[in-house]
Each structure stands twice: as structure tokens, then as C-alpha cells.
């Protein structure tokens, strides 16, 4: 009896040891906060990671020798290889700690890389159990490494700047998951935000400039084919029902100045229609705005003036969407506005025939707009005398 009790106790002691096998202490880890992907001239993949440095003493980056910020707590490390995993191996050799990918929430891919195709390398991020589906993806105008090497003065690290930029939803916001969905979508096109460095200001260190999103990259079958500017991006956002923030400035007819409005709520519904061989799409938009600036001498409390303003607003949006469509349909021939999926959902049978030469057919879709703009509050401001 005594012996069995003793054995019991020994066994219980073993229980206490569980969980230590796969332990990973924070001071054994290199926490990766941002990733940059470049292609070298020899065609190798250059993987740069931004690692959070817990030291807190404000370390310099490997390449940022002349930075002046001082409170940035990140370091950079680069590896090269024929594939992403191979580059990671190279990177591993240079790091004293084990890499932790679960906090890599900003992934920057250089334009040159995107032009050769990103589909194969995304596989790594999907397969690896650690990177998260909510990581944000960006395309950089120049080298991706340069974006991630910036030393922002407002945020702790450049990856954080990128995350905040994406979350503000002023322009495109694309997560790893969104990108996967777009790559698998019916049209095979995807659209990603593009980041650029703001020009260096006088008297500031090279790396102290900030990155910002100003364009959107358009990809076909995972390969970048072109880009669109911020105005057109907003148009695309309208089509995709992703518009969150936008300030629209209009100049109504008969008015002597501009009136700016901030969007409170915007909703887009795409209604496809197949009539024989003709493809039609009705874009139905409902929007609610607030007036934030009034340069004119209009008194917006007059209902008649308000209605004119609403009409001008609707017209302005329609103009913008038509411009967007012009570029997207005729020039890029890339269905980044999501028409393909709408047609497929409504006409699954007929769609199968259209799918084969959608690129050509997309350009022939006749689009009509049905925009309902409503101005909710006009504010008082400096009322015209």
C-alpha cells in the first residue's frame, strides 16, 4: 500500500514537468514585426525582417547608420535565397535567436518582385503556422527594404506605421486573407496598396521620412501590370463597397466656390443583368454626408440649395466612378471592381461561358449609375453675410 502511494507521488511529480518540452521563452525569440521582400539582380529573393528589439536602449539598425530618432527599438536583418524558405534559412544563420512570425503584421513586396509574380511566395505565409491571415500586404514603389528601414518619429517602427496606414482605411486595405481570396476569385485580378517614401525634408536625416500609401497596384494572375492613383483608387473602393473615409469637394453650378463634404456612410450594391449577349451592371449607391467646409455664399439651410448640393455631389461621385471605369475597363482591362463575382453569383449557368474570355467581355459591360446622395448636416460655420 505504502509503495503504491509512493509510486503515485512520483507520477504526480512527472505531471508537473509537462509543457516544458516546447517552451519558448521571450528572451530566446526574435519577434518579427515586419517583412520586406525584394528581388536581387541575380533573381534571388531578398528577405528583410524587422525585429523588435526588447533591449530598449534605442539601437541602430544595421543599415541605418545615420538615423537620429533614438527611440526606435527595431533592428533589421537580411537573408537571400532562391525561395522565401531558403532566404529564411540564410537569415536564420545571422540571427542569434529563434524567429517568431506570429507578429509579422506588415508585409511589403517590392514592385519589381510583384511584376514577376507573388503567388508562389505567398504559399509560404499560408503554409507556415505562425504568420497571421490578418497581416497587411503592401507593394512598394522602390525597394521594399527601404520602406521598412525608415525610422518614423511618430510610431515605434516602420511596420507599425504601415499597419496604422492600412487601418485608417483611407485608401486600400488588403490583408493576406483578402489577397488570397482575390487571387482565387473569378476574375483573377487583385489590387494592393502601394507605399512610397515621402520626399526628404530639409535638415532631416535620410531615414526619418515617412512612408505613405498613395497609389494602388493592379495585379493580374498574381503579376503586377500597372497602378492607379489615389482618386481612381477611391473610385475602385466605391465599386467594391469598401469606402470608409472620403472627403468630396464639389463646385455646384451657379456657385462661386467649393463645398467640401465628409462621407459618413456609403453603401454600394452591384446589380448585374445579362440580356442575351449583352452584359449590364447597375451600380446603386447610397451615401450620407456632412458638410465640413463651405466657401460659397450659399445658405445651405435653404432646402432648394441643399437639393442642388446633393445633386452636385451625386454627379461628382458618378463622374469619379466613370473615370475609374474608363481606366479599369479600357486601359488595364482588369476587373478589380468585382463584377465577375457578381455575374457568377446571379447567373451561374451563363457565367461559365463568359468566364473564358472575361478579360475581353469585361470591357463591354455597360454600366449605369443610380446614386442617391444625402446631406445630413450642414453645420453653421461662418454663415455668409
Amino acid at each position, binding site marked *: 500500500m505504502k509503495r503504491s502511494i509512493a509510486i503515485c507521488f512520483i507520477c504526480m511529480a512527472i505531471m508537473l514537468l509537462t509543457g516544458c*518540452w*516546447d517552451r519558448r521563452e521571450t528572451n530566446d525569440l526574435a519577434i518579427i514585426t515586419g517583412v520586406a521582400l525584394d528581388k536581387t539582380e541575380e533573381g534571388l529573393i531578398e528577405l528583410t525582417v524587422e525585429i523588435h528589439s526588447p533591449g530598449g536602449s534605442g539601437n541602430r539598425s544595421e543599415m541605418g547608420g545615420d538615423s537620429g530618432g533614438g527611440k526606435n527599438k527595431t533592428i533589421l536583418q537580411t537573408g537571400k535565397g532562391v525561395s522565401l524558405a531558403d532566404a529564411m534559412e540564410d537569415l536564420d544563420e545571422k540571427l542569434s535567436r529563434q524567429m517568431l512570425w*506570429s507578429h509579422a503584421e506588415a508585409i511589403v513586396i517590392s514592385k519589381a518582385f510583384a511584376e514577376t509574380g507573388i503567388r508562389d511566395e505567398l504559399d509560404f505565409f*499560408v503554409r507556415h*503556422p505562425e504568420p*497571421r*491571415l*490578418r497581416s497587411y500586404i503592401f507593394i512598394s514603389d522602390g525597394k521594399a527594404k527601404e520602406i521598412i528601414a525608415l525610422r518614423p518619429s511618430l510610431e515605434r517602427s516602420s511596420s507599425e506605421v504601415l499597419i496604422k496606414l492600412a487601418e485608417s482605411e483611407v485608401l486600400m486595405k488588403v490583408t493576406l*486573407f483578402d489577397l*488570397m*481570396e482575390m487571387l*482565387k*476569385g473569378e476574375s483573377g485580378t487583385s489590387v494592393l496598396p502601394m507605399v512610397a517614401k515621402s520626399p526628404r525634408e530639409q535638415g532631416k536625416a535620410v531615414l526619418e521620412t515617412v512612408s505613405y500609401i498613395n497609389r494602388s497596384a493592379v495585379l493580374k494572375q498574381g503579376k503586377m501590370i500597372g497602378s492607379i492613383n489615389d482618386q481612381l483608387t477611391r473610385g475602385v473602393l466605391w465599386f467594391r463597397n469598401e469606402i470608409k473615409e472620403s472627403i468630396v469637394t464639389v463646385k455646384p453650378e451657379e456657385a462661386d466656390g467649393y463645398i467640401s463634404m465628409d462621407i459618413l456612410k456609403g453603401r454600394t450594391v452591384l446589380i448585374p443583368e445579362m440580356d442575351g449577349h449583352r452584359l449590364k451592371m447597375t451600380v446603386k449607391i447610397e451615401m450620407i454626408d456632412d458638410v465640413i467646409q463651405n466657401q460659397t455664399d450659399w445658405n445651405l439651410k435653404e432646402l432648394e440649395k441643399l437639393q442642388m448640393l446633393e445633386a452636385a455631389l451625386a454627379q461628382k461621385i458618378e463622374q469619379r466612378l466613370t473615370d475609374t471605369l474608363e481606366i479599369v475597363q479600357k486601359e488595364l482591362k482588369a476587373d478589380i471592381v468585382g463584377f465577375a*463575382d457578381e455575374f*457568377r*453569383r*446571379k447567373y*451561374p449557368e451563363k457565367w461559365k461561358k463568359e468566364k473564358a474570355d472575361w478579360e475581353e467581355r469585361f470591357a463591354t459591360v455597360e454600366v449605369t449609375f443610380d446614386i442617391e446622395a444625402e446631406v445630413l448636416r450642414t453645420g453653421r460655420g461662418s454663415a455668409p453675410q
Partner: protein
Amino acid sequence: MIEKGKISALQMGILMYHAILATGILFIPASVYDAAKQDIWLSPIWASPVGFLCIFIAYKLNKLYPEDTIIQYSQRILGTFLGKTLGLILLLMLVTSLSVMFWQYGEFVVSEFLPHTPKFVIIGMMILLCASAVHGGLEVVGRLAGMVFPIFFLLFLVIIVLLLPDIEIKRMLPIMENGMMPSLKGSLVLYTWFAQFGIVYFFLPFLTNREKAMKFGMLSVLVVMLTLVLTNIVVIWIFGNVTENFNAPFMSASRYISIAEFLSHLESLVMAIWIAGTFIKLCAFYYTVVLGTAEWLNLSDYRPLVLPLGLVIGVFSLKAFLNSSEAAEHFEIVSKGFMDTLVYGLAIPMLLLLAAYIRKLIVRHKGESEK
């Protein structure tokens, strides 16, 4: 009867719920997606009749031989030699099936959570745990199932609710894009899961309220079906056409949860549900193997068999497959070609029931002719 313990029909239903769903909740969406695409939520509905049929047949057999499990009445129906042979085949299939389940458990834990822990530790611990539960008998297993169920279900619902902000119903459209066939093809894979309901033939003789067995058995199938429909529909709402990229979409979905920045990384919750459920599932199958073997050998007690069989199963499960593609091939075969669960869950009992009816006819015929 070797088993002295009794369970209620409700406990049996819950036990079966776990025995089917524990592994299914993770792997079903991905394996069905290959065939059914965005219609995966329809497939469980098409597949559920198999479950109902299994319960029905086991129930009918139990009516004829109320005190026996399948190992015993197969001998009564087919004679000692044929009955024993059939029993052996059945047991071998159950042992293989159980080993594969242990392998799946070990593989999943190692690949998703503890990559550096040796597999034999993970599988070995689970076998020891299950062995102690099985050693306690059917009552212990039944009550465990009853205890785990509310937690399992509650956490499952919590995950579903937390996923709601990310859903987009558009992703499931168009429904039945290519007609009924894709979802029916997807349901083929699910037959293997629903056919596992057949193993109730090991539990039916030990029920306290046998008249309710049918009712709770059917209810269990229904709840399993509804849970699967709910899982699949949420997965498709969240992931749409990306579903096929994940091994365990429900797990990936829980990883995807992020509410107000701090409520994220909830996969450990799913893992907790999953391990609890899988534990019950493994116990249920382990118990049937142990009890069946003891009855097949005409032993007076099944308890001495628990550990030796555990060792056999452990070795089997560690050596089951060399790598993931070999495993994938195995699952491809058992889900599309030779469906072992359909054989032991449905085909064998059906054969026995048929033989039993024919035998009855002959006996009656003989009796009449002797008069």
C-alpha cells in the same frame, strides 16, 4: 455479460455525438470542400441518412438479441465458426480505425502546436489517459461524455458568435452552382463519419432505458448533422473559396478572430474543445475494441486487456504512416474507395440482420412443417 455498468440512452447519444464529431469538426470542411465547393453545408444533410440507417439496424438487431453485443450475436446468427471469423474481421477493422484516430490526434497536435515534442509522448499520454477511463468501464466513459458535452457545445457556440463580425454571406452564393452533384459527391466523404454511428451495437445492451435508445440515437445523428451544417456554413461564410488552403479550416477561422485587438488568437480554445471531444471519441472506440476482444475470447473480464491493447494500438498508430502524403492516400482510399467504417458500421450489421431474419423464417418454417 462482462460489462456490469449501465448507461442511460441520453449518455449513449452524447457519447456517439463526440465519437463522430470530435475529429469531424476540424477536418470535415476541408475534405468536403474538394468536391462540394461552396455547397459544403449541404453535404451533411445528404449524408445523415447513413447515420439514421446505422442506428436503426443496430436497434433492430438489439431487439432480437437484447443482451448481446455484435460479437456475441454474430455467433448466434451465423454459427460459431463464421461468427468468430466475422467478429475477428470487425475487431481488426476497429483496431485499425482506432490507431488511425490516434495517429490523427498526434499528428495534429504535433504539427499545429507542439512541433518539438516527440509524437510518442503525445500519443502515449493520450493512450494512458484513455486506458484509465476505459478501465473504469462504460459508466465512466458515458459520464465523462455527459460532463464534456456542455463545455464542448458552449465553447463551440462562443467561437461561432465571435466569428460573426467577419462573415460575409455572399461567399456561399451561388447555391448549387453545378446542380446537386458536387454536394452529393462531398457527402460521400461524410458517409465514413456517419457510418461510425454503427458502433452503438456495442452500447445498446447496457442501456438502462432501452426503449428510448432509438429516440436518442436518432437525436444524436440529428444534432451531429446540425453541428456540421453550422460549422461548414460558418467556414464558408468566413473563408469562401480560400477554404481549400487550410488543413483544418475551423481552427484557422478561430485564429482569424480578432475583436477589439485584444480578443484574438483563440485557437487554444478550439484546441481545448477538440482535445476534450477527441478524448471521448478515442475512449468510445477504445472501449469497443477492448470489450469486443474480451467477448471474442470469451473472457470473464475485459479489464486485463486494456493496457496490452493500448500498447498494440500505440505502436500501430506510431507506425501507421510514414509521411503526410501516405496518410493522405490512405484517407483518399477510405473515403472514396474502400470505406472501412461503412463496412463495420453498416454492411456487417446489415448482413447480420438479414441473416437473422432468414434464420427466423427457416426456424418458423421448420416448426410449422414439424407440426
